[in-house]
């Protein structure tokens, strides 16, 4: 267990290092956008843009939020791809820990670093908003109205829907990680069984074909599994229940798919998926 947490810490540190740099650039970029909206450059002289009626700091916060959507989306897809590098690396796989635990460490650290990044984004937005409060009265009014309308609409149902959505988002996040690993592990494992007498370029093409084959296979399985097996077994109406939304069912289905994928990934990394031999 000590090995597990030490490895986790190391992976987390390495994975968040680049995210800090990304956040820094996002802040700079948002400021640059705000600056050029707020000011105009005419004949090498800087003038205040007359059409703009908000302060530069609220502008900054706004651009930061807009960029945040893209950046978080980018990080969401890139980090699981990058973490596959660790699964393939002999340097990391030599750690005195079972491969299944190593894989869990890798996935968890990717997830936690992603959440950490979202928290950082949130904190940055909060700081920028706080600065806006200090400089701009109209922003305060806007948020007062927003809070009021939230309060009015808040009831226990909304709370459950929000909670359920968060759980589903987390499960979907893991689903993405597990699917990417599954394609990586399964295609490599199949590639290791293919007879040796094909050359380098053909192997790459074959690899892509295998991945497509796996995607098709997974799609078929998922169709049959979710629509026919899961729906018939655990459909709410079977139990005389009638939910207002399909959220609980979606959570359950995703959780089951996650567990199946996780199980097969751990099996693959323990018994088939090798670290690269490249020296």
């Amino acid at each position, binding site marked *: 267990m*000590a*090995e597990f947490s*030490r*490895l986790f*810490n*190391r992976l987390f540190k390495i994975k968040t290092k680049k995210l800090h740099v990304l956040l820094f650039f996002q802040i700079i970029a948002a400021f640059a956008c705000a600056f050029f909206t707020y000011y105009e450059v005419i004949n090498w002289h800087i003038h205040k843009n007359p059409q703009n009626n908000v302060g530069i700091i609220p502008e900054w916060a706004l651009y930061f939020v807009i960029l945040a959507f893209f950046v978080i989306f980018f990080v969401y897809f890139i980090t699981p791809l990058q973490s596959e590098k*660790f699964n393939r*690396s*002999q*340097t*990391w*796989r*030599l*750690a*005195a*820990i*079972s*491969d299944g*635990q190593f894989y869990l460490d890798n996935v968890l650290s990717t997830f936690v670093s992603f959440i950490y990044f979202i928290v950082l984004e949130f904190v940055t937005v909060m700081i920028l908003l706080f600065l806006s409060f200090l400089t701009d009265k109209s922003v305060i009014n806007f948020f007062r109205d927003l809070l009021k309308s939230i309060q009015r609409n808040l009831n226990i149902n909304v709370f459950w829907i929000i909670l359920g959505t968060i759980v589903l988002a987390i499960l979907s996040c893991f689903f993405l990680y597990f699917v990417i690993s599954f394609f990586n592990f399964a295609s490599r494992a199949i590639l*290791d*069984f*293919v*007879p*040796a007498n094909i050359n380098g370029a053909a192997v790459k093409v074959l690899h892509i074909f295998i991945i497509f084959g796996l995607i098709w296979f997974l799609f078929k399985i998922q169709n049959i599994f979710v629509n026919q097996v899961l729906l018939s077994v655990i459909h709410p109406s079977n139990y005389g229940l009638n939910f207002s939304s399909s959220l609980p069912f979606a959570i359950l289905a995703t959780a089951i798919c996650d567990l199946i994928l996780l199980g097969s990934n751990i099996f693959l990394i*323990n*018994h*088939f*998926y*090798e*670290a*690269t*031999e*490249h*020296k």
Partner: protein
Amino acid sequence: MTNPLEITDLVYKKNQKKIITDLNLTLKPGKIVALLGENGAGKTTLMRIISGVAKNYRGSVKVAGFTKEADRKGHLSFTDGLTGFANSTKINDIVKFYQILYHDFNLKQFEQLRDFMNLKPDLRLSELSKGMKEKLVIALTFSRRVDLYLLDEPFSGIDAMARKKIIKSIILWKQEKSTILISDHFVNEITAVLDEVVIIKNKTVCMQKSTEAIRADNQSVEEFYESFYQREEEE
């Protein structure tokens, strides 16, 4: 005392091709052993199987009595090409990684080895020549306290002077009970430090013999090794 390495009936296939067949090998504690065989004979693969990074083999592999891969990895130290690090990584950061990953990593010992090999701690991986990198790998590998050290062609990029220095460091830092397996495709420079040679041919171990027994037959270790491959050419 348990043997640092016991392999029985090992078979390993990749891409439907047999790379290792029916291999048996036992190493006793406290030995320095050469694993000899031509390029592509399966020396690296064998070491990867022992370390648990090559998968899907048949047969049993025991390191210090342990069969589970996690335990095996905890009781052996394998020279790794450090490919898991970015080129901009500093030696110090790699050392941190080793300290965190291996609880038996001895920083003091590493620092002594590093000084012995004249490596500066703030150098980056990209600044190291092939020989310096190999010295670093050996220093890292020997800074762990384990029963079995696996050195995969540790001298390939190193000139004769540095090679002698590394061999001396091995003699100096080797614990009494630990065993070292050194793979290479030629043998001449290290013969004086070897207890045994293990020769791999035709995908399996074809000979394991003590070097002093070879010399007692008025044969040099090099001649002995070459005779195995010459016989094949004559056939």
